[in-house]
């Protein structure tokens, strides 16, 4: 009985948090194919603004929560060959699809039919990965495998310094982007 209640609560949180995530993606305009592709064409920096803001704001808060013992980190394995090849494929696929998995799902909700077609493709991609997993696990994932490493561990530079640097970098970058979109090329929002 209690276990079922906990399970249902968790499901309710899943829907709620997913809902908030999808809502925010749409508000940030990253459910728009044109916005995403124009980011990779360096004509529109909306994607970068959303991601960097999320990383800086989210990172500082999650760090404090972790330090207070209220949560724990969930670091993905640095199987660097797999990450590098995967990220390379991901960049290519994302530009051809025009969405990443999260924004693709959200875009379906906004009426994008080609996002729905691409989501079927994503399911196929996941099936292909599952079928090739044994080989990949044996041959790719062990190469340059450093484990669950964080940048502060690797460099000896403390978390606070990383976030200070990231914050300054983000603000400087945003200032440059906003300045250029206001003065220079007026077609920064070109579609």
């Amino acid at each position, binding site marked *: 009985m209690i276990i079922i209640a906990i399970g249902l609560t968790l499901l309710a949180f899943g829907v709620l948090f*997913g809902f908030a995530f999808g809502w925010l*993606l749409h508000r940030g305009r990253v459910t728009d194919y044109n916005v995403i*592709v124009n980011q990779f064409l360096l004509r529109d920096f909306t994607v970068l603004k959303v991601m960097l803001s999320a990383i800086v704001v989210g990172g500082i808060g999650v760090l404090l929560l972790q330090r207070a013992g209220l949560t724990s980190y969930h670091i993905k394995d640095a199987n660097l060959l797999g990450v590098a090849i*995967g990220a390379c494929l991901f960049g290519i696929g994302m530009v*051809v699809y025009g969405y990443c998995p999260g924004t693709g799902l959200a875009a379906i909700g906004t009426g994008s039919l080609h996002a729905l077609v691409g989501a079927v493709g994503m399911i*196929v991609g996941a099936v292909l990965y599952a079928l090739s997993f044994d080989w990949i696990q044996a041959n790719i994932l062990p190469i340059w495998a450093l484990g669950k490493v964080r940048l502060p561990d690797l460099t000896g530079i403390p978390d606070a310094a990383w976030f200070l640097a990231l914050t300054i970098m983000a603000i400087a970058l945003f200032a440059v982007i906003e300045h250029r979109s206001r003065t220079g090329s007026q077609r920064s929002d070109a579609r």
Partner: protein
Amino acid sequence: MVSHAPDIRHASRLTLPAGWTPYLAGAGIGVLSWIVFGVVNMPIGITTALSQLAGGVAIPILGADAVASNSYWAKNPFILDYGTVFLGGTLLGAFASALISRRFAFESVPTVWSDRFGPSIAKRYAAAFLGGIVAMFGARLAGGCTSGHGISGGLQLALSSWVFLVVMFASGIAMARLMFRPVQRSSRRMS
């Protein structure tokens, strides 16, 4: 086609919630990360759950035994859990936001695509499907997507996630250059 906001700055003043700037949406995702880490102690992510769904889709095609004996799906089983309902929530959240801001619109061929590749729906769907396959395969090989690696891993300062971010953007920019390079009247083959 999506008919919104030629100019974001004006839109944000006129239609109150519809034009949240990318910064606010990004910061909102950051704050959502605090809540998600704090409440369920899990990072925001999409593609692990999408792989679980793919296992369910694969059952009628590959057979229940093949799916059950697959080592990847053994780790990521097809069940209704926090992660899989999160996907539904993401779609619903974007749907609600699009409805409320009156930006819900069916779209088959976005403008950046049609400017370069013409109005053919079949062509766009084919690209979305193939791009979805490649993006998803890449995401699983890397261990996450723009959400799980990019935002959640980035904000935890994970080495793997920052490698992912850098390689993904570099590869995406190169691919966008290749695909959307200016061409003469004679339409050349894509990609």
